[in-house]
């Protein structure tokens, strides 16, 4: 798993690539939180290179989604694929987080 972020004009993009699970969740969480500390006005989670996620990753994302919501910052998800799309859908996240195209 690799994670990196881009910040431009108030827009934070977090790229998560590979397979996200218990073994690397702390790295993803830390990068995400560093991005939030820059006070973005929009957050995009770019997942087109993410092949696998489980409930550990979902827990990390829900927690940040809630925090951003309380800050009034919209969060979008982009590039969901077969497995990640199904996990997002089954967890109910797809009905609360907006998809960016």
């Amino acid at each position, binding site marked *: 798993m690799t994670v990196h972020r881009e910040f431009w004009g108030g827009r934070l993009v977090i790229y998560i690539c590979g397979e996200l699970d218990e*073994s690397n969740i702390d790295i993803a969480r830390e990068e995400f939180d560093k991005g939030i500390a820059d006070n973005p006005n929009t957050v995009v989670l770019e997942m087109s290179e993410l092949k696998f996620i489980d409930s550990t990753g979902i827990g990390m994302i829900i927690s940040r989604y809630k925090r951003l919501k309380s800050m009034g910052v919209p969060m979008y998800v982009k590039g969901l694929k077969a497995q990640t799309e199904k996990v997002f859908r089954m*967890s109910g996240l797809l009905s609360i987080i907006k998809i960016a195209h």
Partner: protein
Amino acid sequence: MSLINQMKMSVLAKSGNEAFVRSAVAAFCVQLNPTLEVINDIKTAVSEAVTNVIVHAYEEPEKNFVYIEAELFEDSLSIIIKDTGCGIKNLEEAMQPMFTSKPEKERSGMGFTFMQTFTDELEVSSETGAGTTVKMRKYIKKAEE
């Protein structure tokens, strides 16, 4: 339904082994030529069960084992993920969607729900102080030849 193949393995309950275990179980059922969706469902369910062992079962997970068994039938894969750890005190509560004993760790509480959703049958038994056994069955939809 006749048994085609059987597999048993055990690995230390280290989080770095999660990807190995889910890939190994998925690779084991490839001989039935399942669809990509079925393979992904199996990987997701196995990952959840192994995560539970790593996070909850042992005080020192990296020194203890998670035991994996799989049986391949003509139409399905049966998977057993077992530990010899602390067991689950209140299984009914633990299996409730969104329940987590570690909310401070940002756990979603969706592990058992995912195991249930991504397989066709789920059976969990647990004994305090002795360990937990998760049994799952997934019917295999075959990919087009």
